[in-house]
């Protein structure tokens, strides 16, 4: 017999479902049949976008969001290489907004960063972006105003190539990964400032040590002595976030359909504010075919880490007539986004449990020397073990390293001599004494998984790089921060205190090295340009718009500064950027004739 309560519950779920259905664009609705290139969506030369407040229903609970044309995530914009597009954005919010076209090559005044490329779009006003579409691939768009991106103001862009697509596929799905909180983003930011580790509910504990789940207390104390938390992997975690796939929570279970035997192209976009995801589909290997919208030589892996603002296109070929679970596990394992690929609606597969939370290592402090043939008393070669090391003052003065005199080298954790260009202030907690190139390393938490994991050095451009000149100069930038104060900066200076932009000469080629002096990963994004990571064969280096710099590591890329204008350059962790990890890059002269 039905109880009244159950009936009401059912009705509630039904209406919640209807609300959810209305709030999501067709491509993101569950049981999506996939986006054949001919499916109608926002396309053409005239596109109208209305930015307004709305409610987003996540796993049965309604939260405040900012949507575009009534949906969050925003509609898919599908363009074709070679066309022109006029996008008129109407701001129906009671605050300023903007849209940045992430990864698109366009004139700087159309890039959509208030205070850099244009004044922003005031409440009640509209702005028309207009530019030629000069590329193809998977990209996305999002607000560059305040913290609106956290509230759902992001959507995918797919640009079909003008000619033949070297990637063959029968069906495709856009997979937008994101993180959603029922807290207001300003509250999240305030909590981060008020209390370091506020959202971390996976710390090491005394009971954990006694039960053997966490490292022994002596080990925990080594970290405490340094005022560092090895479990501080993500600043904002699943303790407040629900991880979304195409706007659906794990319980909503967004489902994309396929026919067994089809080649299915999945266009992954990490539109999260703060979450790096580890993505896998148990039972289906991924063939990576594109990174940041740029085709790459196919490489097959079982899992990949996608940092904030990166995109990866992958091909999967499900042959069995069964459901597969798509897992987007937060890097700190505090939760996961979950979706299903299935031949028919309503199917589901096992959802694997969250794996053990990773723990930061010496390598994440830029102090790992296991790559060198050396040892010192008490030190263990395994990078994760810090037992016996005195971190307060690792004086290596008298150490002989196979003929190399280490005299003068200081391994302390905050020695200005290890980064002379960094302004040492309260915002700089650590300087990595020995940062290493970590492009060939798996992301945090994936070091020991038993299957194939994508690393940057696996990537090789499919097409030849457009500029193969040797750089005429080099530039080093340090990614600095203080996790205790939640201050983040480049070279020790928050944008609010920086007086000068980072200047480039037009068309010059520069070798840029990003050194991560902090213990957090930073996805660094340069607007208006692609750069070639210094890996892979010359001339076929992977081109990216966003690169994840692992903690204590560094990344080097070559950049051709071919887009005149002023451009934003920042960490794409939204609250890191908001805390000051942002710069303006200038490319001059603006006029060709003066070059």
């Amino acid at each position, binding site marked *: 017999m039905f109880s009244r309560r159950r009936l009401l519950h059912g009705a509630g779920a039904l209406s919640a479902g209807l609300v959810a259905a209305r709030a999501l664009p067709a491509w993101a609705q569950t049981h999506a049949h996939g986006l054949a290139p001919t499916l109608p969506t926002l396309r053409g030369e005239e596109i109208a976008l209305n930015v307004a407040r709305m409610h987003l229903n996540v796993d049965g609970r309604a939260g405040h969001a900012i949507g575009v044309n009534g949906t969050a995530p925003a509609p898919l914009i599908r363009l074709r290489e070679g066309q022109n597009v006029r996008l008129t954005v109407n701001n129906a919010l009671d605050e300023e907004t903007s849209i940045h076209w992430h990864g698109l090559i366009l004139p700087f005044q159309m890039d959509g960063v208030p205070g850099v490329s244009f004044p922003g779009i005031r409440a009640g006003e509209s702005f028309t972006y207009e530019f030629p579409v000069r590329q193809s691939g998977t990209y996305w768009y999002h607000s560059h105003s305040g913290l609106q991106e956290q509230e759902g103001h992001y959507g995918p862009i797919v640009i079909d190539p003008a000619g033949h697509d070297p990637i063959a596929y029968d069906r495709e799905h856009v997979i937008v990964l994101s993180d959603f909180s029922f807290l207001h983003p300003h509250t999240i930011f305030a909590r981060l400032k008020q209390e370091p580790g506020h959202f971390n509910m996976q710390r090491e504990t*005394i009971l954990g040590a006694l039960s053997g789940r966490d490292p022994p207390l002596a080990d925990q104390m080594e970290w*405490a002595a340094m005022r560092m938390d090895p479990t501080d992997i993500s600043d904002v975690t699943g303790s407040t976030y629900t991880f979304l796939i195409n706007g659906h929570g794990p319980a909503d279970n967004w489902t994309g359909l396929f026919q067994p035997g089809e080649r299915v192209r999945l266009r992954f976009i990490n539109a999260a504010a703060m979450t790096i995801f580890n993505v896998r589909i148990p039972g289906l290997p991924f063939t990576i075919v594109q990174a940041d919208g740029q085709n790459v030589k196919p490489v097959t892996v079982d899992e990949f880490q996608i940092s904030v603002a990166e995109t990866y296109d992958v091909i999967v070929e499900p042959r069995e007539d069964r459901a597969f679970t798509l897992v987007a596990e937060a890097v700190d394992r505090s939760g996961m986004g979950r979706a299903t690929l299935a031949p028919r609606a309503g199917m589901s597969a096992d959802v694997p449990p969250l794996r053990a939370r990773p723990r930061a290592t010496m390598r994440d402090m830029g102090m790992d020397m296991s790559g060198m043939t050396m040892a010192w008393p008490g030190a263990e070669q395994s990078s994760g073990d810090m037992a016996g090391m005195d971190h307060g003052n690792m004086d290596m003065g008298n150490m002989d390293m196979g003929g*190399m005199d280490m005299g003068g080298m200081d391994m302390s954790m905050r020695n200005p001599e290890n980064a002379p260009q960094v302004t040492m202030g309260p915002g700089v907690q650590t300087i990595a004494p020995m940062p*290493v190139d970590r492009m060939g390393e798996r992301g945090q938490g994936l070091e020991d998984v038993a299957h194939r994991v994508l690393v940057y050095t696996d990537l090789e451009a499919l097409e030849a790089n457009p500029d193969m000149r040797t750089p005429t100069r080099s530039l080093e930038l340090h990614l600095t921060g203080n996790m205790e104060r939640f201050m983040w900066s480049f070279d020790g200076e928050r944008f*609010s205190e920086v007086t000068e932009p980072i200047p480039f000469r037009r068309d010059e080629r520069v070798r840029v090295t990003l050194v991560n002096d902090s213990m957090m990963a930073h996805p660094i994004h340069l607007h208006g340009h692609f750069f070639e990571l*210094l890996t892979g064969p010359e001339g076929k280096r992977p081109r990216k718009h966003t690169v994840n710099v692992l903690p204590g590591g560094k990344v080097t890329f070559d950049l051709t500064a071919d887009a005149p204008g002023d451009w934003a350059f920042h960490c794409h962790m939204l609250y890191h950027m908001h805390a000051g990890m*942002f710069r303006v890059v200038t490319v001059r002269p603006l006029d060709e004739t003066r*070059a």
Partner: protein
Amino acid sequence: MRWTLIIAAATPLMLASPAMAQTDPPAMQMPGPTSPPQTHAPNAAEDEGEPDHAQMDHGPMDHGAVDPDAMDADATDAGAMDHSQMDHSQMDHGAAAEAVGDEPAPAAPSDYAAERFYSAEEMAAARRQLRREHGGAIVSNLMADIAEFQLGDDETRFHWEGEGWIGGDINRFVLKTEGEAGEDDVESAEVQALYSRAIGPYFDLQAGVRYDIEPSPHRAYAVLGFEGVAPYWFETTGALFVSDQGEVSARLEGSYDARLTQRLILQPRAEINVSADDVAERAMGSGLTDVELGLRLRYDITRNVSPYIGVSYETKLGDTADYARAAGEDESDARFVAGVRARF
């Protein structure tokens, strides 16, 4: 005696000060070896703005020191590099063979590209906002660290300690209050209004005023103190007080969060007060006046709301204890406490 105490109280301040001693070296690029620039020479306009070559002085970079860059090449680029050559140009890349040029960086332009298309006035306003929203945020915090009933032999008392602040990353305005109320009256209540400045990664220097609303006679003080996190994550606060009567005293507080589980936290806590003067009218002797030790077990329902129980032991020392005995009061007191820690 007085100066000894002042020095003792100031010691933590001095310990914190190395963080203040920050070097501020000029921005420096790391030019490669002396291969000639391959592309266009900078034009005259750019030349004018070129950085002074003194800025690129390698002097501060001790070439005698091993360059970490070159060393990790060992891991990433085995064999391809001569390790005896500790040149800074030897960056650790697979493509170390190509010689990156050593052109200087161009001068930063003084114009704003967007002003070609949009009103300069609007862009200036947008730039101000951009700064505020990228490192210039004003944040506030309001926290009742202790709000508890203390159950003693004779009476139940209410004890509070709270702090609020508002400001940016470096400069903040801080309000602190603490006090104790008996069943009939407020026994002690003080308020501090402080300017706080971050002086290192972990410590703030604080200066301002303190006013004791109770007990009578009222006192106003000048305050110089510090607040921060010591190694092992000890929360520490120290302050030196000079009253409007010229009396000098100091207070040192410390606490530690021992995380039993994610939400169950045991917090030992200690407070030591010293006075340089004998202040009879406030029943305070010179020297160590009192020590307060606490052990509180809290449960984080959320990180913002944590009820707790615990014990608090307070003892007066030296001449201050004599004053207490003379007044017929207990010189020490152990109490059971129950309260809530809350962030608003």
